[in-house]
């Protein structure tokens, strides 16, 4: 761990200059001149078990959020936020890989924070992952990670989340998502969760065409617009033949 921090600091020293410039261009309006944040308290919705009340409508302080948060928010395209007050959404990433590294280094240099995690899903256990995901995440992200609705936010489907981003999200708790400490979810457990989320992108679809993996709504559509339509058409055909008989 310390080695990572040391590395991050070393890189930071080299590239903070470029990073600071980009920051001034894209981020300063919301996060303040030196990442101290722009306060403007406001209430947003919460999750089922948890109401998150005060959150800055402009931008929170970035001091101490570390490379971890910066990397997550930039590589998902969550930042720069398009409109104040919106939920950050996955969108086109504005910066090149190099620029992201510079920005991350700059933000990491603002205070001591966690480094970018390196999850190792191959060490995780799929069954444990499903179990933990159902316990901690399915209430928001839906059990096969197809996304859902909570008051005030849309927990996204996790189809596009990379291994690193999953680990980062769990540690950050972006927007209304709770933040999970290393005692709540250990790094070993996190490996299992990442393994599960990876697996569920291509789940075990025995039984045929999966129609979206979210169950009853598309099943109802198939019932009416495929099965019932077909059977009514059959009735019409048979009815015609009856007329001729």
């Amino acid at each position, binding site marked *: 761990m310390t080695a990572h921090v040391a590395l991050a600091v070393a890189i930071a020293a080299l590239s903070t200059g470029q990073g600071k410039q980009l920051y001034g261009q894209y981020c300063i309006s919301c996060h303040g001149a030196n990442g101290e944040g722009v306060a403007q308290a406001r209430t947003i919705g919460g999750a*089922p078990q948890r109401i998150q009340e005060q959150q800055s409508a402009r931008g929170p302080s970035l001091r101490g959020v570390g490379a971890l948060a910066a990397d997550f928010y930039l590589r998902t395209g969550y930042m720069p936020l398009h409109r104040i007050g919106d939920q950050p959404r996955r969108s086109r990433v504005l910066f090149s890989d190099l620029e992201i590294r510079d920005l991350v280094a700059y933000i990491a240099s603002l205070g001591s924070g966690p480094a970018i995690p390196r999850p190792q899903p191959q060490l995780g256990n*799929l*069954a*444990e992952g*499903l*179990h933990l995901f*159902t*316990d901690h995440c*399915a*209430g*928001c*992200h*839906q*059990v*096969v990670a*197809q*996304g*859902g*609705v909570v008051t005030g936010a*849309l*927990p996204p*489907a996790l189809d596009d989340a990379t291994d690193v981003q999953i680990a980062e999200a769990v540690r950050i708790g972006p927007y209304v998502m709770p933040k999970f400490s290393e005692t709540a979810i250990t790094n070993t457990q996190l490996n299992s969760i990442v393994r*599960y989320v990876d*697996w*569920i992108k291509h*789940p075990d*679809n*025995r*039984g*045929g*065409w*999966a*129609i979206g*993996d*979210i*169950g*009853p*709504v598309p*099943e*109802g559509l*198939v*019932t*009416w617009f*495929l*099965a*019932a339509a*077909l*059977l*009514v058409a*059959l*009735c*019409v*055909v*048979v*009815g*015609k*033949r*009856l*007329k001729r*008989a």
Partner: protein
Amino acid sequence: MIRRAVRYLDTRTGTTPIVRKTLRYLFPDHWSFLLGEIALYAFIVLVATGIYLTFFFVDSTREVVYHGPYVPLQGQHMSEAYRSVLNISMTVRAGLLIRQTHHWAANVFIAAIILHLFRVFFTGAYRKPRGLIYVIGVTMLMLTLLEAYLGYSLVDDLLSGMGLVIGYSVGLSIPFVGANVMSWLFHGPFPGQSTLWPRMYIAHVLIFPVLIGTLLTVHVLLVAMRHHTQFRQTATETERTVRGVPAYPGQAPRSIGLMFATAGVLFLLGGLVQINPIWLWGPFHTYVSTNGAQPDWYLGWLIGALRLVPSFDLVIGKYTLVPNPFWGGVAFPLVVFGFLYLWPAIERKITGDTAFHNLVERPRDNPLRTALGIGIVTWVLLVFIAGSSDRVYVWLNVSYTSQIDIYRVLVFVIPLLAAAIAHRVCEELVAGEKVERDERAAEAEARLART
């Protein structure tokens, strides 16, 4: 050969007159009269596949640890019931095919009943002397909804467990008796005692199927005794003539064909299209839930109603008389089914028409009924669509609360509008026919004058 067999039967049972009468039964030849048959055949598929499933299903919520071949669930605690359905889906030969076919058949069964009901309602086929047939039909629809809900709940996966929680809270919300009835059914508070699953199971595989099967038999026998209705085919046709296609050689072979076709469609779906992949949902525990849980389509209208009713309880003093789920979960279906049951009597009152009717009307011939029916169908349909507003939010990004607000207005406005439009369309169609008829008469006259 056939003749020998027939003679063998006849000399021992004397059934020839009955058989002969059956074979000469005249069927109406319009396609819409076949919708009920689809329901019948789906029911047969349900019973057949259901029997196979009973060989492997275990009706117990005893907690066990899964050690089967499905890796993502290995080592997980689950009920024996859920494990047995996992085994049906994973290891039992043809288990998944049969399970999926059973579920598709249930979905299609209810769809077919409703289409059949539309035919009966919009043509006035429920009028005297077929009132009892109609009442039995509506009752079967209600029983079928309960039966399907039971079957869905038995699996004890995450989604069905959440469905059971909702059902439980709706049951609790019934004023005065709800709490007692639910604690009697569940043998205590949710999630109930170990007796609950055997109870649900016996209801699902014996009580309800036998009830539905018996009513179905009576329903069909009564249709045969009162004879089918039919559309008027010539202007001079009276309520007393019976026209149509004889059972043999006209109708029966085609009906049998329709049966195989229905079974074919259902088994194809069962084999090719996934339904309720319970291994992905995982087992139910009272402390877990998933976002985006939805019921099967035929209960969607109730979820929609639960969502649309503003959150309020009827409170008197310290006593909550009517908890909120009552309105959407009990009152709404009561209104819909109440309407279905009472409509024939109401119609008789309004029109004063108490005569026997063997000829059915086309929807356009009775604009009032058609408009009313369209209005109610639209109403239920909108409530139903509102039930999927969380998915619509995810797919189309229209905020959930604003959708609900919009629906709260739409469910009152759109049905009225739809009814008005339907009324107008009926009138226009009839007027158009009259014009056509007059034109034809004039032409005929002109032709006559020329010769």
